[in-house]
């Protein structure tokens, strides 16, 4: 079904990572020399798990022809923001530098990516907000990047791939969570893998389609890690947004964690209440993709299983191909829930959206 009102907050849409040549102006002399001398600047930094030629990475009617006028940003404006009547869109620029092993190099590129996002995206379109993309190869560098950009209200969250090198809740990453919490920024764990290790517990699958299917298991692993490691207790103001998770794995996951906690509580005495209560309070899920058959009755049941009207955040996942036409919402969603997920929940999740016009104004100043 369509979204029957204007003013939604689209919590996950995408622009391609900029070419390295576009990033060189944002780099210092050392790194721009390194990148040109080593020919690193001649290749795109695309994530393997974000391979742009795959059919689902571009909805066919959203894919620009070679001779199509206008920029990718122009198309995002008209096809995503205007078309769905969204008042705000949170754009996630995913750059392959997050998969580099060289932590200093990754940080140099990501600083440029984030500056480019501020300069070429956020200051060009007042409806858009951005995500601070960081590498966890050296958590101290991620902290520095969050602190560097925390003053820019155009950035509303910190962006990480859901499958990294270690399970995400590990204490080694806590300085990053602390920095995000201090800055009032949620952490967005977005579908994708660094491919540091097999993306399943049984080894490397053969096909891309298996990689995609296995992402929901990656979300399970990351969420149970955050829960078990006590991240929710340690950082009581930090929200985690799970983007492109598929959503419907969540009820079964909550049932499992609730039951297990009753038996294993003493290993994790910092978990002080039913896991589902913690999850419902602290975890948010973007709407698309939504793993369910096109059956309103089943979707209604799944929403009841989810057990909370506060967890979902409206998203189109533009330009990825999850739905056709304007039917961005699965049939079976009641209208009052739609208003919550499209407007109330995003504003509750992203503190910086509540600053409203202020943010836009400061953005213009920054630009």
């Amino acid at each position, binding site marked *: 079904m369509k979204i029957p009102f204007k003013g939604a907050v689209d919590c996950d849409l995408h622009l391609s990572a900029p070419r390295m040549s576009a990033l060189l102006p944002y780099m210092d002399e050392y790194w721009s020399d390194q990148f040109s001398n080593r020919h690193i600047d001649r290749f795109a930094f695309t994530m393997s798990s974000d391979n742009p030629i795959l059919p689902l990475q571009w909805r066919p009617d959203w894919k620009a022809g070679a001779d199509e006028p206008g920029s990718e940003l122009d198309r995002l404006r008209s096809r995503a923001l205007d078309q769905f009547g969204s008042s705000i869109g949170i754009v996630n620029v995913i750059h392959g530098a997050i998969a580099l092993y060289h932590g200093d190099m990754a940080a140099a590129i990501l600083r440029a990516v984030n500056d480019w996002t501020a300069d070429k995206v956020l200051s060009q379109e007042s409806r858009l907000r951005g995500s601070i993309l960081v590498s966890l190869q050296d958590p101290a560098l991620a902290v520095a990047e969050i602190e560097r950009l925390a003053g820019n209200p155009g950035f509303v969250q910190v962006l990480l791939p859901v499958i990294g090198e270690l399970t995400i809740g590990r*204490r080694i990453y806590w300085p990053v969570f602390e920095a995000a919490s201090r800055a009032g920024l949620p952490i967005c764990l977005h579908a994708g893998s660094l491919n540091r290790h097999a993306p399943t517990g049984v080894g490397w699958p053969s096909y891309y389609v298996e990689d995609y299917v296995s992402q929901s298991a990656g979300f399970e692993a990351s969420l149970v890690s955050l829960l078990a*490691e*006590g991240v929710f*207790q*340690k950082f009581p103001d930090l929200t985690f947004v799970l983007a492109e998770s598929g959503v419907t794995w969540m009820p079964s996951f909550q049932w499992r964690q609730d039951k297990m*906690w*009753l*038996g*294993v*509580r*003493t290993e994790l*005495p*910092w978990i*002080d209440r*039913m896991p589902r209560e913690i999850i419902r309070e602290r975890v948010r899920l973007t709407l698309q993709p939504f793993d369910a058959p096109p059956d309103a009755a089943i979707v209604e049941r799944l929403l009841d299983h989810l057990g909370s009207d506060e967890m979902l955040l409206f998203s189109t996942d533009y330009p990825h191909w999850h739905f056709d036409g304007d039917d961005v919402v699965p049939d079976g969603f009641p209208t009052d829930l739609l208003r919550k997920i499209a407007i109330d929940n995003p504003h509750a999740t992203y503190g910086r959206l509540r600053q409203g016009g202020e943010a836009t104004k400061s953005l213009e100043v920054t630009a």
Partner: protein
Amino acid sequence: MIRHIVAKTAEIPAGTHRIVDVSGRQVGVFNVNGEFFALLNRCPHGGAELCKGAVTALVQPSGVGQYAVSRKGEFLRCPWHGWEFEIRSGQSYCDPARIKARKIDVAVERGEELVKGPYVAESYDVTVEDDYVVLSL
């Protein structure tokens, strides 16, 4: 409801418990720091013989990475799924409102009162100079 004399208090010293048979029902009788409590020997979750589980302390809710115990001997851990029950109330520690082990009323009576009856003495010859654990079931 019938009152059953199941033990002399001296037979269940503080920090110990015993499982008694009362008209075909198994009941765990616990002496927690001098106070007596009794629970039906069946876990309300999965049917295990609950009172055969370990008597433990409370692992306190804590900060991350901190481990501390208190209230030694006041909790019972089910021998199957490890669910924790407070012996005093029978309540599940994790989900007290919803999950309770069946509590049995227990009293300590002086032998001189008990000899007046009417009680089911099971196999006990009641003497006036001893104290007895009495279950109402």
